[in-house]
């Protein structure tokens, strides 16, 4: 998201998620969401196109997969 987050934008996002937040709640959350989205940009800046998302996390099995796929340099 570019620019500052407004409480109206928070209210719109909350409605999409089927939460009805009052104006006061949205004002409280707007600066926090802005900070959080700026943090999210740190991940967006990484090229993760080759990485499948973890859904059910089983680290032992994931390592076996990573090694089997030759993703780790030898």
């Amino acid at each position, binding site marked *: 998201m570019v620019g500052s987050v407004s409480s109206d934008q*928070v209210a719109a*996002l*909350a409605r999409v*998620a089927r*939460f009805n*937040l009052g104006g006061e*709640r949205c004002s*409280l*959350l707007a600066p*926090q*969401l802005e*900070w*959080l*989205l700026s*943090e*999210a940009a*740190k*991940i*967006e800046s*990484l090229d*993760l196109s080759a*990485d*499948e*998302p*973890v*859904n*059910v*996390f*089983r*680290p*032992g099995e*994931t*390592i076996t997969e*990573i*090694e089997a796929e030759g*993703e*780790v*340099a030898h």
Partner: protein
Amino acid sequence: MSAQELFYLDIPSLAEHYRKRSMSPVEVTQAVLDRIRRLDPLLNAFITVLEEPALAQARQAEQELRRGNDRGLLQGVPVSVKDIFDTAGVRTTAASRIWRDRVPNKSATAVRRLLDAGAVLIGKCNLLEFAYGIVHPDYGQCNNPWNPSRTSGGSSSGSAASVAAGMGWASLGTDTGGSIRLPASYCGIVGLKPTYGRVSRYGVAPLSWSLDHVGSLTRTVEDAAIVLQTIAGHDPLDFTSSRIPVSDYRARLREEVHKITVGVMEQHMDALRPGVAEVVGEAIRELERAGMKIRPVHINSLQGADAALLLVILPEATVVHQEWLRKCPEDYAEMTRQQLEMGALIPSVDYLRAQQYRRRLLKEFVEVFREVDVVVGPTAPWEAPKEDPVVAAGEGSEEAHRTCPFNLTGMPAVSVPCGFGKDGLPIGLQIAGLPMAEAMVLRVAYAYEQRAGWFRQRPPLQEGRSSSGQAL
């Protein structure tokens, strides 16, 4: 033996006393219950103390030991659990108003395994509301035994404070971003977060399914190995539970360490409060003196870890809590409520990108572990603060910055005490390994602990009086 010495024995020594009949489980349990009565008004570590059930379990342990029915080292040993673990017939509140009257009819698998081993459950410990980083005013902050004007840390706050104060030998906790290791660091004890899937989470209130781990808080590494041995292993009731066989953790503690290579997480040595880097640096030199090779390691994508934790934990927690958040939002502590509302606002693309990032992070750690056996660094950037910082804010991220990568990757990590900072409060050294390498992590932790000896330090709580002179 003085009362102080009794409360700070390690589990093998207590077990030996029981078998020699120089102490009895009933006497020890009664002494611990008396100690809780004296100390807990200052510390606020317990939500529920189970006096009569504990004494009944102690009597049973005593009778069984007399008959030669030996269930192992935890038999008759007083332990506690964070009040987020279900206990059959005993109120389980999660330190929330929402669950204030909730009495489950089944125990969590980890609790059941402790009880099956003959442990005596003395109580349910205070925590941050639903383990989500905020004190609920109905329950209040748990104070640090080293300085009661500071927090014991969270979210397994009561578990850490109770063990540090000699109110039991071990406590079960949960760790989603650092909630076992951070309070262990602040309270000068051992906090072990095993590999994701190593210990069942059945019967434990979820916070964030893909990040939650069950582990232990103890005063020594050997005690941590004993507890892990008891609670680890496959559980058909938890679909994330691993079928990989459980090692003999205690037997492997004393194996040689001179061929071990330790990677120093140099990115975790930045932005530390004054004094922390010196204490942790000295701990790393102690590892070197023990014969281990030391080398720096670098994880290229590590800078995304704090954000990834929030982008996963916030929406997952909101999904867990959405019904209550709609029905009774005012029952939450204000900041818990804000964090839960925030979770509804996270775009799904950011959540999924964070899940992609976790695989990348694990891949980079696997690469680093081709050269090293464990990685180390500070557990926390500071000594225990006055209050626990909010999770979804700058200070909360800073606090969990060094612990959260091991929740994101599911790797085992332990915090062991490594000295004291400028405020005279404990500092923790974090040691982490590859998934399912708990034996290696504990072996390095044990070698360090035995050489450094910090586990012999005790909080300055006197019988009937706190270090500040406050009557108990």
